[in-house]
């Protein structure tokens, strides 16, 4: 394959990574932005989404036969279950330590191990696939310039599956919904007021602890949804949360802590560079470059691309 189509293929693969990463990192960013809690267990909610997707789709498929019902049920149920678990963790652990930044880090490390080991004990150590609801291969065109001028060609191997296109579209739709929730609704207004000044928010009747519980649940639900969407592409495994958490931290630091727009931009940057560098060089080099980028951001722009400098 020539360089141009090869690059396009790499960009498309990177865009799928970026879409899933943006969903997951936006949850992490939301939790930090509103609650000032660094949720070390965030990757486990991603894993939980993938594992629940397998469990739900297996159960529904065996009850109703094959088809897309299992996946649809997983998309609807897994984020709700993960979100409910996160709310329970917030009310029973984070609230009790007063949302203190240091103590919540230790608490979420504990939550990380509880979720991971619970998955190992119940789901097991195997990696298991979930069938995508649709997976047609769509050939993509390329413009070739010949003596007769430009013309469309269909290079062999230049294609994408309909499921990967769906992942990109679904992530974009959910992120647009999240943006609308934050900027266009009363719930978003309350969340932003809490983010800006917790004490004054309380002095104006905002039940801050309830807002925190909701935000922690929403963040976990976004991670779980990312896990559900990725599991037909990668397999579900109880250790899959570690890498996802690391990449999410990279994205959130580059984008600016608590900035949704910055998170999406950084996810695109990291996802696309990961796709392109992985295709043309190696996945290891892609990870090295992402880590180097974080180091550069921390040195030259510690507040991130869209974050606000501390005053």
């Amino acid at each position, binding site marked *: 394959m020539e360089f141009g189509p090869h690059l396009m293929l790499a960009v498309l693969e990177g865009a799928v990574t970026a879409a899933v990463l943006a969903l997951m990192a936006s949850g992490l960013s939301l939790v930090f932005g509103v609650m000032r809690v660094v949720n070390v267990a965030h990757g486990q909610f991603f894993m939980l989404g993938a594992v629940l997707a397998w469990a739900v789709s297996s159960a529904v498929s065996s009850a109703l036969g094959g088809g897309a019902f299992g996946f649809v049920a997983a998309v609807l149920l897994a984020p709700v279950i993960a979100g409910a678990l996160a709310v329970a963790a917030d009310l029973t652990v984070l609230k009790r330590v007063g949302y203190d930044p240091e103590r919540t880090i230790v608490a979420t490390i504990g939550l990380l191990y509880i979720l991971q080991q619970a998955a190992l004990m119940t789901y097991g150590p195997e990696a298991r696939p979930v069938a995508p609801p649709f997976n047609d291969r769509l050939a993509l065109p390329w413009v070739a310039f010949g003596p007769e001028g430009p013309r469309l060609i269909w290079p062999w191997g230049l294609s994408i599956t309909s499921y990967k296109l769906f992942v990109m579209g679904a992530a974009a739709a959910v992120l647009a919904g999240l943006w609308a929730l934050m900027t266009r609704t009363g719930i978003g207004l309350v969340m932003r007021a809490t983010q800006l*000044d917790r004490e*004054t928010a309380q002095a104006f009747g905002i039940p801050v602890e309830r807002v925190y519980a909701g935000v922690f649940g929403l963040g976990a639900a976004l991670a779980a949804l990312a896990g559900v969407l990725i599991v037909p592409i990668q397999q579900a495994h109880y250790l899959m949360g570690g890498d996802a958490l690391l990449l999410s931290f990279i994205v959130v630091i580059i984008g600016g802590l608590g900035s949704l727009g910055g998170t999406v931009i950084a996810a695109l940057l990291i996802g696309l560079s990961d796709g392109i560098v992985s295709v043309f060089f190696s996945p290891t080099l892609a990870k090295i470059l992402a880590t180097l980028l974080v180091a550069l951001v921390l040195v030259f722009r510690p507040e991130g691309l869209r974050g606000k400098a501390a005053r």
Partner: protein
Amino acid sequence: MLEVRNIAAGYGPVRVLRGLSLTVRPGEITCLLGRNGAGKTTAMKAIMGLLPLSGGQVLLDGEDIGRLPAHEVPRRGIGYIPQGRRLFADLTVAQNLEIGMRCRKSPPEVRDRVLAMFPRLADRMGQRAGTLSGGEQQMLATARALCLAPRVLLLDEPTEGLQPSMIALIRDTVLRLRDEGVAILLVEQRLDAVLATADRAVILETGAVRAEADAARLRTDPDLLRRHLGV
């Protein structure tokens, strides 16, 4: 009527209020005075439920609100204008007012009335609060608290850093609210403002009341304040 009975509160192990008692009556402006560190702002926060009480009671029309979750206190009708204004700087003027409106589900007429008191805000509804001038920020902080349609209003140094015309506007607003029957507790450092507005003055020292005086005594013996405050 707001009654504070023998409350104790502080920050962690540091006790700031040590048995503070005072009463704020409807249609009356009570000024809370004291040197830096006497506990004026701490008293405001304790009344608002923002600091836990380690003793005593806060009664609003007979109901003990001292142990309620902090967000329930403003819902009972206590408005708060904190020191330094504490606006939601990244939200617009309209959104800051909306936060006040949502607290007690105030009808739209309340906002219309508040905007009629501060017409300059009506022209800046889409502007971010953090970009307003100091005087406009104080107007917004006051307007936001009035959107609760409060029965009791706590103001913590509302004229701090303002130009004279703005101080006059805030003073007129406070007097108007007093005349409408709102119970007002005012922390104020400027003695001329205290003498011009206060119906009663309560002087704090190390977290407890050292002296009290009504308006008549304040005006006939203005040195009273100077003696207690050392100014």
